[in-house]
């Protein structure tokens, strides 16, 4: 198996609970991978292991051929794998611009803390990159707004823009459209996917809305009970009745469960 991100026999157990079992996935560069599955299927556990938030019980994770299994999340970020969060992790007492500038300044600086203590936050480079990122993610009009008062969609975009600072090669988005109204979802994903394509970033995104997955993913990984039960192009995978039933329940309930997540 080869690819920018290769996962081999990945397993995670919490006591007797198996949150991930024998996951084998290879993601080639620039692929857009949708991760689907019911709540508790192991999607976020998978994301957490790749980004170093959780240490796998077994198995290896290779990034660009390099073993990153069990490394702390800050090292993995420095190597080039970033993530956004289901609940946006932004600095709520700062403005949108300050949030973005912190992300770009950290990404540009050396990872030595003492160097960071001697480098000013606002350098021409960090400011220009922050401005460019706000434009790219279409949130520049909010630059002076406190992050605490942002509409949910903008906060999601800011969270993703901050994760994408410093040109990561792989970006994992955990439910980028959760908490967003149905009318806004496609607009948000259009902006995000265009921006990430522009930056040539490989994307893995967790998503409950199958229309979103179908529209944006090149490939779908379906999780059930900690295991990958289907892996293929969206049309093939999503049409599989077994997958539909396992992931979304009987067809009638699909909109109901979808709106509960919204």
């Amino acid at each position, binding site marked *: 198996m080869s690819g920018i991100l290769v996962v081999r026999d990945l397993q995670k157990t919490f006591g007797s609970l198996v949150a991930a079992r024998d996951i084998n996935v290879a993601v080639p560069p620039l692929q857009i991978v949708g991760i689907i599955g019911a709540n508790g299927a192991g999607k976020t556990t998978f994301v957490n292991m790749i*980004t170093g938030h959780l240490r796998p019980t077994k198995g290896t994770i290779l990034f660009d051929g390099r073993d990153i299994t069990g490394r*702390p*999340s*800050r*090292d993995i*970020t*420095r190597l080039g794998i*970033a*993530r956004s*969060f289901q609940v946006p*992790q*932004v*600095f*709520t*007492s*700062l403005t949108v611009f300050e949030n973005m500038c*912190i*992300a770009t*300044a*950290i*990404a540009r*600086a050396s*990872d030595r*803390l*003492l160097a*960071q*203590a*001697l*480098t*000013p*936050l*606002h350098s021409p480079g960090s400011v220009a990159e922050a401005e460019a990122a706000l434009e790219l993610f279409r949130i520049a009009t909010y630059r002076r707004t406190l992050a605490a008062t942002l509409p949910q969609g903008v906060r999601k975009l800011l*969270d993703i823009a*901050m*994760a994408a*600072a*410093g040109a990561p090669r792989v970006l994992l988005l955990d439910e980028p459209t959760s908490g967003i109204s149905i009318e806004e979802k496609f607009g948000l994903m259009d902006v995000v996917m265009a921006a990430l394509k522009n930056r040539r970033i490989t994307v893995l995104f967790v998503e409950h809305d199958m229309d979103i997955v179908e529209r944006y993913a090149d490939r779908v990984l379906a999780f059930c009970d900690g295991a990958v039960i289907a892996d293929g192009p969206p049309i093939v995978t999503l049409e599989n009745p077994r997958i539909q039933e396992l992931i979304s329940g009987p067809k009638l309930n699909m909109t109901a469960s979808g709106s509960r997540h919204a």
Partner: protein
Amino acid sequence: MAPRPLITGMLALLAVAAVAPTLPVWLVSLAAIAFANALVVLGLIILWRSGLVPFGQALFYAVGAYAVALMTRYTGVRDALVLIAAAAVLSCLAAFLAGFLLARYREIFFAMLSLAISMILYGVLVKTETLGSTDGFGVEPPTYLGYAPQGNMHLLMLFWLVLAFCAVSALLVSLYFHSIAGTLAVPVRDSEIRLEFLGISVSRLIHLNLVIAGTLAGIGGALAALSIEHVDPNMSYWTTSGGFVFVTVLAGAGSVAAAFVGSFVFELLKSIAYDSLPGTWQIFLGAALLLTILFLPEGIGSVFARFRRPRKRETTGARP
């Protein structure tokens, strides 16, 4: 390009230094102690910005003070700069060691753990005869690069030395507040997870802030020991730490200058209250803090910020 408040602050310090010889001795002496203590407060401001309130900062204050006192007592070293440098190194080391434990805790756990560590030092000082026990001991007047001032000149030299350390510390801390690491204090309060996923080790960052704050407290303690000419275990007691927190609340975390103004106002209030209400001076101080919290919830520093803000808007508006 130095920011305007920094220039204003430095000019204010120079003005204070220039008029000092004409001021009454009691006021210069009070200001020397107030500004020495302001260095501790400056360190607390660094920690407070990330939501940490140490109730044991007197630990490092006492380490600095005792370092100076013990050196004048047991060695021939008298030079003020050497004494203070030694105090700074020792308190830095103490903060570095304590930091391995403290940097892992937040909120009340951090506050209580820091208090506990400082009370250990208090216990050691009280029980150890060679360290002066409960009475402490006197501190010999220092020399300045070989110059040994006489009479009033002694106090003035010391005051100028305190001001010089304040100026340098204020300058360095303001620079730090504009650096990447220094700006991350507020983000630490908002989302440690995001910081970790941006590639920052939050515990290392807090450890660095603890070392900076501890070193400032040690220098403050050294200068206070030289100003008071005496050290005793009360310098490490939790009420001393509480006093520094009091001044930090009074000053607010908004500006570097507030630490100095806040500390001076506190010492002044304390001595006025002590003079006029010897038995009940704490009530006076308590009322002052209450009024500050009610009417200036962000401390004295917010007054400066209020003056500064409209001017800032003008300059950014003028830029093309």
